[in-house]
């Protein structure tokens, strides 16, 4: 009965894996990897909602009645490319932090900040 919801559970598990990496690790690069896993879980959530049983890819062709919903595909298509652009921005920030503080570990950065005050 409840097994029809398994796609959401996969999404929730992936999302929590990403969330755990973000809050439990101090390394900024690892946090960015965690964020991108979180992001992908949201993509999978949208795409799995768009799937229709017995449907096919939304490219019109003769003799096909049932298509999957094209709207989430559009949203996620653009979101992926925007995601990589913002990830690159995050990586750039991490590189600058490394240059300024000599470390990308959260704890070291906070220690240096406290020393400066």
């Amino acid at each position, binding site marked *: 009965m409840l097994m029809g*919801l398994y796609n959401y559970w996969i999404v929730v598990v992936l999302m929590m894996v990403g969330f755990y990496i973000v809050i439990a690790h101090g390394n900024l690069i690892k946090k960015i990897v965690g964020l*991108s896993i979180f992001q992908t879980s949201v993509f999978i959530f949208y795409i799995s909602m768009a799937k229709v049983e017995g449907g096919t890819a*939304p490219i019109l062709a003769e003799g096909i009645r*049932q298509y999957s919903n*094209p*709207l989430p595909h559009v949203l996620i298509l653009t979101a992926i*490319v925007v995601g990589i*652009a913002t990830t690159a921005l995050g990586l750039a920030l991490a*590189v600058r932090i490394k240059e300024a503080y000599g470390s990308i570990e959260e704890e070291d950065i906070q220690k240096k900040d406290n020393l400066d005050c």
Partner: protein
Amino acid sequence: MKDLFAVIMLSGIYGLLSASFFVSMDAVDVAFTEASVGAGISTLLMLVAITMTGRTENPSRHKPLLALAVVIVTGSLLIYGTLDMPYFGSAQAPIHQHVAPRYINDSMQEVGVPNIVTSVLASYRAFDTFGEVVVIFTAGMGVLALLSAVRRPRDVAEIDSFNKSMYEEHLILRIVAKMLIPFILLFALYVQFHGDYGPGGGFQAGVIFAAAIILYAMLFGMNTARRVINQSFIQLFAAIGVLLYGSVGVISLLNGKNFLDYSILSADPIAGQHLGILLIELGVGFTVASVMVIIFFNFAGRRNNQQNKENNDSC
């Protein structure tokens, strides 16, 4: 795992796997994008980033138990929330009742493009896509602002000697890449202009095009690549892409229609739609390709500068 290199490689594999999830859930366009972005460009950018930030993670001192508790509580709340959601694959789900039937049934008469994803992306929701393109452009500018360093042009002799040492080391890779890069560029153009009829479009084509240029830059050295493709030229192209997109919208505005309503571009509304989609996909392709190349060039240029500095210090 403390080795960030392994972490990044695994995340690349995860990107490829999620692309195959998307294929099995009928989202071919999305899978295409995820395969080129998630498994290709993002892995590459992270690798370049860790060459500058160090490869290992320090062992963390705080206890992970609190984080684990937060994660478990949030996760179980979310799972409780899914109990009311429609079942996977059910055609009666609310998401399929609202606008999707119109896109599926009427887009052929209204836009005349077989790939519904392209017609929604570039025509029905073109304003949304315009916003996304601007976000990508802004992110590119952000990376440029953060990482662009004063480039010291190195001597030609130095570049040649560098090339010679690279040449012996990566002979096979270079020859194969030289054969493949034209085909990659050709494939990018095919994806760009075939987006109306099959999976593809400006976003994917831009990423593939950028991948070809990045491959060239990796194998033949940054300086050679900079001589082929000037950085200010790419920056210009990123801006041209956004401008092209916006000006198509303004033209339809000036002709008395809504912003980004392409029916006015030609006497026949369907032909106008085709022309409009072609133009804005071109704009998207320009912007995405050049922003990706800008991001990579800035990361790599920063890295070269750092290495030069270290060499000078050690001398």
